[in-house]
């Protein structure tokens, strides 16, 4: 397998995290996504109150994601050397923010139920 295919990437990710942890993370991400869709369908609407709290929690997710990557890679913000570095960093922050926001929304919906605003 020479080209960068999904199979190659999965093989590398399995090596990176260990197959068990990698697939556990995939399952967790999938479960949260499915639960998100579930509460949307169940409630038949986005709750703006829950969405507000989810949005407010986004910076937490962003900072946590960036902090995690910097910690595991022995690097710091002063190591950013060019535009691509900042773009990658923003991408990591965005992924952390969106992921955490979805998590917070789902958690509220499951804990508080379908109550309206």
């Amino acid at each position, binding site marked *: *397998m*020479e*080209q*960068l*295919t*999904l*199979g*190659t*990437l999965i*093989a*590398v*990710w*399995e*090596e*990176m995290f260990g197959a068990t942890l990698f697939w556990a993370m995939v399952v967790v991400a999938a479960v949260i996504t499915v639960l998100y869709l579930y509460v949307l369908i169940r409630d038949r609407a986005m709750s703006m109150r829950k969405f507000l709290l989810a949005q407010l929690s986004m910076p937490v997710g962003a900072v946590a994601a960036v902090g995690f*990557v910097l910690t*595991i*890679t*022995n*690097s*710091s913000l*002063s*190591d*950013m*050397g*060019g535009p*691509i*570095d900042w773009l*990658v*960093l923003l*991408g990591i922050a965005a992924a952390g923010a969106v992921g955490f926001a979805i998590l917070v929304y789902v958690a509220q919906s499951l804990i508080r139920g379908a109550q309206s605003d």
Partner: protein
Amino acid sequence: MTRIYDLAATRRGFMGLAAGGAALAATGGAVQAQRVRTAARIAIVGAGAGGTAIANRLATRLEGATITIIDGRQQHWYQPGFTLIAAGLKPATYSVSNTGDWLPEGVEWVPEFAAEIDPEANAVTTATGRRVEYDYLIVATGLTLDWDAIEGFSLDMVGQNGISAHYAGPDYAELSWRELDRFVDQGGVGLFGRPATEMKCAGAPLKITFLADDIARRRGKRDSIEVVYNANNQSLFGVPIVHHKVRQLFDERGFVTRYDHVLKAVDGARKVATYATPDGDVETEYDFINVIPPQRAPQVVRDSGLSWADRWTDQGWIEVDMQTLRHLRYPNVFGVGDINGVPKGKTAASAKFHQPVVEDHLVSEIAGGEGTKTFSGYTSCPMITRIGRAMLIEFDYNNNLVPSFPGVIAPLEELWISWLMKEIALKPTYNAMLRGLA
């Protein structure tokens, strides 16, 4: 044009894991090649990066073949990690696993060193006298570090009196860190450099020099150390454009660069290193020295008649075609990894790029056809310039830069993303390569 595209995609395959994998994943749907039935006997000498990876690939591609891999080393070493260990960023265990853990079922591992390779009789004899006959031979022995070539030096000196030698293995890399750590605190003259032979990872001597400087700066001790780099010739790196970039960085960081200085002796008691130069021997006192010895083909290979007769005669690399990696005099012999007598590429990245070429030519021949894939000389060196930054340098036989992400990751720029690749993506990619999956 198709071929050029394929090569670009291949480079991405190796380096392109940190950045946006999902989008790239859509670029290629790998077609699993059909297994080829055969009764061929294939011997692989060496179970390092190259030998293990090709064993896995051939076990996947061939059905019914007798594949025997010969190597007495029980430990598998992830050598790209040695620099990180020698800089105190990883423990020695980071680079150590078991040879047997990576070998596939269906491949017989003979846990002995080869004592004789006879390409006329198509047989390999092990140290205990076991004879392995083959139809095809893959030489993947790697190279030998010739420590004895440095007068007055022996490995038991490493880890004390300022002597480091991280090429010697993970434990020696950890001992080397102990000395570097002490040197940075106490100050003095630090000597770095490289041998005059071909060597594996020609960027590694430069990386450890950059790291020593960076560690001293972080501790506020830079003024108390002098960093001296001894180049073996008039260049800091074999690719001219990279040489100039490194020279510029060396100047900016205040290193003393001495050209045409080849380490020939270490006097541990006096703390004096002797360098051969065009003007005669030069003695230099040191408080810290990083020793990297001359590198040669293992004796078993040099005795086999597989080496070039008129090139690298003091080093013994095997005489393979630089594109197909097939031996020029024994067409049933191929080379993988450091042992190949080609102008570039004694790195894990090159060993990775040898894989599809050797697999293609070998399996095609067994299937009654002819292979078409070629090796371009691709070599990759994530050149660490400080903790947290590296330059992702990739080049080929023609000294052309061949960046995996042209216009995105600049090869001669010190970038965090290149450091990310070195620190978190490279080892998983390497491991996937060992399993024949990348």
